[in-house]
């Protein structure tokens, strides 16, 4: 459906995309992942010429979009796009948002357009909000309306540019659920996202972007479980670990704990597992000497069988858990192993446990 050949994109001196060649077939659900600043969104926005590529060719249903003679407005009617910041038309009711494209661009009579709009609203669960205005909706509701608006144009492909990044964690689910249902209906999609669980569940193919190109691609089970190349592996590992650096006695405890909780939520850890991780991180943070910067890392493997917290701190060789204080006993109870190493001035304390163990 889409063929991309040697796509390049630079902003001034800065080369963002240094050559991408790929194809998207009808019915495919492509998810584009990768570190920030590798041009994921730029790539997506180049597909429908919102940010036309500096060089290369994009073909859609046999038409060359980079050709000046192609009527891009006609093409875009068949390529829907959902944005991170929803971009609903603020002066129109939800219903009008869903009708305006149909009536003005597709020439559908208003009554018919309204009927379609109401059906679409029902499928995204927002029938009651037809007469509401965008600023009366929550983020999740806005994004569902945006998806419905996109569908109102009956596109052949939908491009999602980080559809959940601007949402509260509590609202991510309602949007991903709608996208998953769309996926089941056979819609062709290209999605840029940071939601790894979602990416893994919904995609037929993952594009891992790094160094200004597609660094590795493959089915989700390969990319997430057994990536072939080094950077992919590091990225997948990184998204499975949480790291916080303590620089002084007065470090931001609240921030550290809150980010840890978010990390647990994002990765859908079990409540018990998340609770144990928080307890261990909190106690270790208290016990660690903080005269030199100290690091705390929480990580788990793909199958979530064994959780690990590593504390790295400076000073003399000292196992901060090697005593019978209340805190040390609490941390050690129910753990699989506690190991202490000392190497070139750094202590490294590793605590592991199985998440299904009772504390």
């Amino acid at each position, binding site marked *: 459906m889409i063929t991309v050949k040697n796509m390049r994109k630079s902003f001034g001196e800065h080369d963002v995309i240094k050559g991408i060649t790929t194809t998207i077939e009808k019915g495919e659900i492509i998810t584009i992942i990768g570190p920030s600043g590798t041009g994921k969104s730029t790539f997506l926005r180049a597909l*429908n010429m*919102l940010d036309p590529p500096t060089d290369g060719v994009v073909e859609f249903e046999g038409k060359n979009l980079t050709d000046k003679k192609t009527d891009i*407005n*006609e*093409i*875009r*009617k068949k*390529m*829907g*796009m959902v*944005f991170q*910041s*929803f*971009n*609903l*038309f*603020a*002066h129109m009711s939800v219903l009008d948002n869903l009708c*305006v*494209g149909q009536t*003005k*661009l597709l020439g559908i009579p208003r009554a018919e357009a309204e009927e379609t709009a109401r059906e679409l609203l029902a499928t995204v669960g927002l029938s009651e909000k037809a007469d509401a*205005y965008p600023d009366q909706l929550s983020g999740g509701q806005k994004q569902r309306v*945006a998806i419905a*608006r*996109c569908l109102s*144009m009956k596109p052949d492909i939908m491009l999602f540019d980080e559809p959940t990044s601007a949402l509260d964690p509590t609202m991510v689910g309602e949007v991903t659920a709608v996208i998953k249902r769309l996926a089941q209906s056979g819609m062709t999609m290209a999605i840029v996202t940071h939601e790894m669980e979602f990416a893994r569940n919904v995609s037929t193919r993952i594009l891992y972007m790094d160094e200004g190109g597609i660094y590795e691609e493959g089915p989700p089970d390969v990319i997430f479980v057994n990536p072939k190349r080094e950077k992919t592996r590091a990225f997948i590992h990184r998204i499975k670990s949480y790291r916080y650096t303590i620089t002084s006695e007065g470090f931001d405890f609240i921030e550290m704990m809150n980010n840890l909780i978010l990390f647990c939520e994002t990765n859908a850890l079990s409540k018990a597992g998340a609770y144990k991780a928080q307890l261990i991180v909190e106690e270790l943070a208290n016990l660690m000497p903080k005269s030199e910067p100290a690091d705390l890392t929480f990580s788990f493997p793909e199958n979530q069988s064994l959780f690990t917290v590593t504390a790295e701190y400076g000073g003399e060789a000292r196992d901060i858990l090697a005593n019978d204080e209340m805190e040390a006993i609490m941390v050690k109870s129910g753990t699989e192993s506690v190991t202490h190493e000392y190497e070139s001035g750094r202590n490294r304390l590793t605590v592991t446990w199985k998440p299904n163990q009772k504390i």
Partner: protein
Amino acid sequence: MKSRYISIIFTAFIMLFVTACGGNNGGADSGRLTQFRAEDWDGMKISAITGGVYDKIILDNIPGAEPVYFYSLSDGIEALKNSRIDAVIEDDAALRLHVANNPGLRMLEPFVTIDEYGVAVAKSNDELLAELNEFIAQIKSDGTYDDMLKRWLDTAEQTPMPDIPVGTGETLRFGTSGIVDGFTFYKDGTLAGFDIEFAYRFASFADKRLDISMMDHGALIIAVQSGKIDFAATLFTITEERKQAINFTDPYYIGGAALAVFEEQTDNASVAPGFLQNFKKSFERNLIQEDRWKLIADGLQASLFITIFAFVLATLGGFGVCGLRMSKNPILRAIGSFYITILRGTPIVVLLMITFYIIFAKSSISGTTVAVIAFGASGAAFVGEIIRSAILTIDKGQVEAARSMGFSKIGAFFTVTFPQSVRVAFPTYMSEFIYMFKMTSVVGYISIMDLTKAGDIIRSRTYDAFFPLITVALVYLITASVMIWLFNYINRVTDKRLRRAKK
């Protein structure tokens, strides 16, 4: 809403109270005097109109006397009749009229100051000057001149203009101010007076057609200089300073500031007119007599006409300027910025005069059209910026969303950006309209009789400084309030969301 009406009524009441009050006490017997000698006036009280030049003239020429301030000459004469003061001072032409109207009032000679008055002609136009001088000499010798003086200055009923057939040759363009009683003034809605009759008679004498335009007193000299008009008369005092700029004919009238006393002063000084009586008299004198309210109505019409058409022009121009400013082409952008810098940085009066006296100096385009153009051009700079800043507030994401659906650039603008920026711009846009309406008060400079000028004309006839001004202020205030109410109403009914919230 209600509080606004109350505040308008309250303001009006305060203003009228201030107007109708005023007066003073005093009195000695000056009625026996027939000659003016400064030394007779030690300790005497002489009326001087507030805000005029006469208090200075009193101090300079009659140092022993004490100026007593009145809001109008009529009030001063009233006080004189009641022996509360000893004399009034005014220019002799105005006094002659009041002497004709008030039996018992007598003007003292010699005058306190002597002024010569002449007709203004452009420096280059010696031919016309000579012809005018010849004409003045002729009417003075054949008795026409005395007839004219009698007609306009010495009778209570200033008789209507005689029918004077003008010539058939080329057109003479004559300018006058319309605000000097006896010489150039509005009587029953039309221009009349000595200067007007003079102009007609001259046109007849020179066998030419006549075209009269009315301008602000100060603007007449510039108009003569720039060739916008051929000659001007509005009881111009001949001064050395003015002679630098233009030529004057031989004096056609000699006068000056004079004192007037009342022969039989009554002693019932205690009868000071009450507030309501004062108000009623002012009201009748300034609005009812000679249908003067019609001047106010015509003036308001002119002000509104200019404002509305200028604003339509400003809105159209505003879109143009905004388009230039937001263009991708740096040259067009620079042109837009330049336009805005120039037009926003030029005071509207200056712009108006430049348009009238320089750009359209030689064309016969009407003053109203010039005002519409000048206000429209200036307004375009402001409206352009209002539209631009409103457009900039609309988040680009929405435009992007519209483009991604397949809307063209223009389609996205009219579907998404424009409707929202209208809502954003509306309040400022509305203020700009009200502001423009009030700013049109300067169009009197270029021969348009607007609301402010109407007040000036009434003032020049009734010698009442406050009542016409306050009336004009109130008419502005009320009209602007009605406009604001109307705009808010439009805003309310066109905003679907507000309407829904009301339900």
